[in-house]
């Protein structure tokens, strides 16, 4: 009797474990084809840091391309100094920017941007942004890397994942009801994306002479946006290493003390 119940219990446990394993398997299989490929990022891993040169180039992409539609509202121009730029370099980057303000009489004016200003928004408000973009405001990019499943890989994937209409198979056109005016993106959920392909080879001319291929541009702007999403990541990892080393030492010490205290009871 007991033996039967025990074996029933074990069988049930094995069955549950099996069901969960199969379920997990099916999920990965069905979603696999939409996932952008994993790339190696400079900021990956427990010791990864931001590639400053890439992030500076990425800022150039943002300023010359993305900022026409996408805001970066949580950043201020002063933050750019964290990308190894001097104060004067940042000042020269923003010298032509005019930002809205009020004068002493309370009248709206435009004045040159200062380091303390937040990044200038492309549209005065969300309604204006939506009106200029077929009814849907382009998302703010401040935390975009944290706000998407897949993070940097996803953002890079979307930027490079456009497929021109004439390269689509008839099945794809039928399944997703794509027309000539739609933008088809391999990695965007649902594939039809409002944003036209923003980057292409030689879209910008890099100041440091790096060849501006589509892949290079997408990697650079992703590096920049990763920094923008979490400017304190390097401090976080540095602190983490020290915290864990301390805790390891403390755990070792506690273990020795515990052994000594218990030695008369063992």
């Amino acid at each position: 009797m007991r033996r039967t119940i025990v074996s029933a219990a074990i069988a049930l446990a094995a069955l549950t474990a099996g069901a969960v394993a199969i379920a997990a398997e099916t999920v990965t299989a069905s979603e696999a084809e939409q996932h952008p490929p994993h790339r190696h990022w400079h900021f990956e891993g427990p010791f990864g840091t931001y590639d400053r040169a890439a992030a500076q180039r990425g800022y150039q992409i943002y300023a010359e391309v993305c900022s026409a539609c996408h805001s970066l509202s949580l950043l201020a121009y002063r933050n750019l100094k964290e990308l190894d730029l001097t104060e004067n370099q940042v000042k020269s980057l923003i010298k032509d920017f005019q930002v809205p303000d009020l004068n002493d009489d309370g009248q709206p004016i435009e004045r040159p941007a200062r380091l303390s200003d937040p990044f200038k928004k492309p549209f005065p408000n969300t309604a204006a942004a939506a009106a200029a973009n077929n009814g849907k405001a382009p998302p703010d990019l401040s935390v975009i890397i944290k706000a998407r499943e897949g993070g940097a890989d996803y953002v890079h994937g979307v930027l490079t994942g456009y497929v021109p209409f004439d390269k689509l198979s008839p099945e794809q056109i039928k399944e997703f009801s794509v027309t000539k005016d739609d933008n088809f993106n391999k990695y965007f959920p649902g594939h039809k994306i409002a944003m036209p392909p923003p980057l292409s080879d030689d879209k910008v001319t890099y100041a440091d002479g790096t060849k501006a291929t589509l892949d290079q541009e997408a990697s650079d702007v992703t590096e920049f946006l990763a920094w923008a999403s979490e400017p304190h990541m390097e401090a976080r990892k540095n602190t983490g290493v020290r915290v864990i080393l301390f805790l390891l030492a403390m755990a070792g010490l506690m273990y020795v003390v515990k052994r000594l205290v218990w030695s008369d009871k063992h």
Partner: protein
Amino acid sequence: MDSSHGSPPVFNNKVIAWIDHRLPIFSYMEKEYRTFPTPRNFNYFWNFGAIATVMLVLMIATGVVLATNYTPHTTMAFDSVERIMRDVPSGWVIRNLHAVGASFFFIAVYIHIFRGMYYGSYKAPRELLWLLGVVILLLMMATAFMGYVLPWGQMSFWGATVITSLFSAIPVVGDSITTWLWGGFAIDNPTLNRFYALHYLLPFVIVGVVALHVVALHVHGSNNPLGIDPKGPQDTVPFHPYYTMKDGFGLMVFLIVYAGFTFFAPNLLGDAANYIPANPLVTPTHIVPEWYFLPFYAILRAIPDKLGGVLAMFGSIAVLFILPWLDTSRVRSCTFRPIYKWFMFVLVADVVMLGFCGANPPEGFWVPLAQIGTLYYFFHFLILLPVLGKIERPLPLPSSIADAVLKKKAG
């Protein structure tokens, strides 16, 4: 200072003696945390009560600091959290400790609950101790849920929508209750404000119930892996330094894992969608709660009827309240319950499986799987537990704790 079992301590320091004569806090600490006789055979599962207490203190400490920098307004909450992450000095440490800390508080408490169930710590004379523990769990769930709403991301907003709408399933007064909870006819600023107030209040209520939990614990002392009562001084050791040091070691190991997540993967346990500001006009494709609610969420969705689902979900916690009376076995520890022991592991597997069901959209085979899981969950508590206690023949219990410990050493 000198003390021995039974006699009150004598304090050599005059100031301490003066205070203690009028307010015996030192005698109390001496009695409850130093000489307190504690079974000598605890395993590392017994660390998690102390670890959970430390997590509670840590959550309150980080939470108070966060509160000084957070703005509970629908138009500013999201940005104020990001401002803490960016512009408040070391704000990112505090915020990550708090957000990841919620998960680790639940990890500690879930292990603590498993310990209590596996070793029968809920049985006489510790039923009230167990009930207070379930009250703490409920308060923690309410606190965690409301805390998750505060950053006002997409999951904050839609999670709050799903959970508060549950109350509308109550017949007749449901809609009124929901309106009352929201402070209006939709989730909006009044909702965020009251959740913030309650999220700040409830942790201190938890502290109060934890105090009662500890008082109840110190009446009959701790249970132990053998589930038999200590019979004399040879079965126990003073709480300090034996268990303060053992808890200290266990705590450090726990903190290493916690720090690993906090500093190297702070967003791994969270949902990316909560970094999208709340938007009442855009429903996320999958609304999922934090991982520690997933099994209960699966039970909620397993029942095709809304009111039925709500009742099943609350019922899954409610059965814990009557657990001490559902278990008919006279033996506490699963060590001596050869059959029930296996069903404990099946229950754990079932809850984990329900967790997977809760994480996935309720379609395809996930629906029947969640239903089987839910059925088994209630079968375990309501049928298996009372019946098995009657028919199972427990293994012979050792004559004393010391006896078992010494035999183990020799063998």
